């Protein structure tokens, strides 16, 4: 029960990013795991003519998220960051929450139809959530970087969430 409360508190921290150290201090990887699995599950069921042309498979989404988070963490540590490995993974994983919400919204919108209006709605939602994710993770991670290298650390995070947003936006149902 205590762990569940901790996870829930972190979700709230992500949705309303303030400079709090709770997210950094008591890291856990439950939240990122749940988010990653749900995002990968929701990205299933995309249509494809052949296996080669379709959207990402479950394993591909999983690998991209975890491998991407590890690479970004290594990058920030190599550039001289003071944050620990698992703390950074925790933050990056939790900040996938807005994008998971965006995926949920997209799937609901696609139930209603797949025309131009639905695309515009999905585009706006995904872009907004992408911005939210990037800002939230930057707010938590930027302080631990040396000041003249902040942009070098923020850019890979931007790229990471951009790729996830692209996967969400290009999801086309059967």
């Amino acid at each position: 029960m205590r762990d569940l409360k901790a996870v829930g508190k972190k979700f709230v921290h992500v949705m309303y990013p303030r400079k709090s150290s709770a997210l950094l201090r008591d890291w856990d990887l439950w939240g990122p795991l749940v988010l990653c699995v749900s995002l990968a599950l929701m990205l299933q069921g995309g249509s494809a003519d052949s296996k080669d042309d379709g959207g990402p498979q479950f394993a591909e989404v999983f690998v991209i998220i975890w491998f991407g988070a590890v690479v970004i963490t290594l990058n920030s540590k190599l550039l001289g960051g003071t944050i620990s490995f698992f703390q950074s993974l925790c933050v990056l994983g939790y900040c996938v929450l807005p994008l998971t919400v965006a995926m949920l919204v997209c799937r609901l919108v696609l139930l209603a139809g797949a025309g131009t209006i639905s695309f515009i709605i999905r585009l706006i939602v995904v872009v907004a959530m992408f911005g939210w994710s990037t800002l939230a993770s930057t707010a938590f991670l930027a302080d631990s970087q040396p000041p003249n290298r902040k942009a070098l650390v923020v850019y890979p995070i931007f790229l990471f969430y951009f790729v996830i947003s692209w996967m969400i936006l290009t999801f086309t149902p059967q």
Partner: protein
Amino acid sequence: IACLVMYLFAEFDDAANLLAANPDATTISIDEPVEIPKNQHSRLQEPGREEDDELLGTDDSDKTELLAGQKKSAPFWTFEYYQTFFDVDTYQVLDRIKGSVFPVPGKNFVRLYIRSNPDLYGPFWICATLVFTIAVSGNLSNFFIHLGKPTYHYVPEFRKVSIAATTIYAYAWLVPLALWGFLMWRNSKVMNIVSYSFLEIVCVYGYSLFIYIPTAILWIIPQKVVRWVLVVFSLCLSGSVLVMTFWPAVRDDNRRIALATVGTILLLHALLAVGCLAYFFDAPELDFPAPIIPAHNATTVTTKSR
């Protein structure tokens, strides 16, 4: 002491002779004023820098510290060793990118920007950006080309990301490895004044790929002429960076080998650009038959025959 002095004079004599023997040393050309002092510098510096940059990471800390400035030499199994390859600030990375996009004629990219501080940040993240840019732009371009057609069904083509990643990272690491091996081999046969470490070559190749990122975005425009003009333009820019970097390293060699080396470098670079364009971006003007869905084969055939 007299012997020592004589020995030193002999050393300087050798260096002077070498430069005198090099016919280019006396001619007035743009890059010479930059090259001559750096040539001597690099020649004296060479043994230290070679050891410093070898991937096995020798502990020759005295020599390397003296010659390379503040570069610490940690054993290669520690984290600090790899941190030395990320010892760049934001403005340095931006400067290097600028240098790769606006090549100054006669200025060597490595000497001007890298200066014994090769980084792996630039090459790695430029390649990553390029991979996703090509995949996304290709997908977008295909979407726009086939937009009006009734039988077209949008697919994200996610598998192409892994193909793009393999190609670009292989190019950015294997070609420098081959080139470095080749240059080392020639170095053992012919005394080259300029030589580069493996990481510097990786650095040059990584930064020279930067121009392909805006090019890939502009390739979305579905006009054949525009795309080929972009290919030629970006090839000229990044090719010139590579040529100006590697020409000083091979020009002391046999003329034909030097030309062949530079020609191969340019050819591989061109192949990468053209290959990416051909594979990821569909041809705009051809009547591209819609992807055949097996169940709908009959309807597709009747549509085309109308």
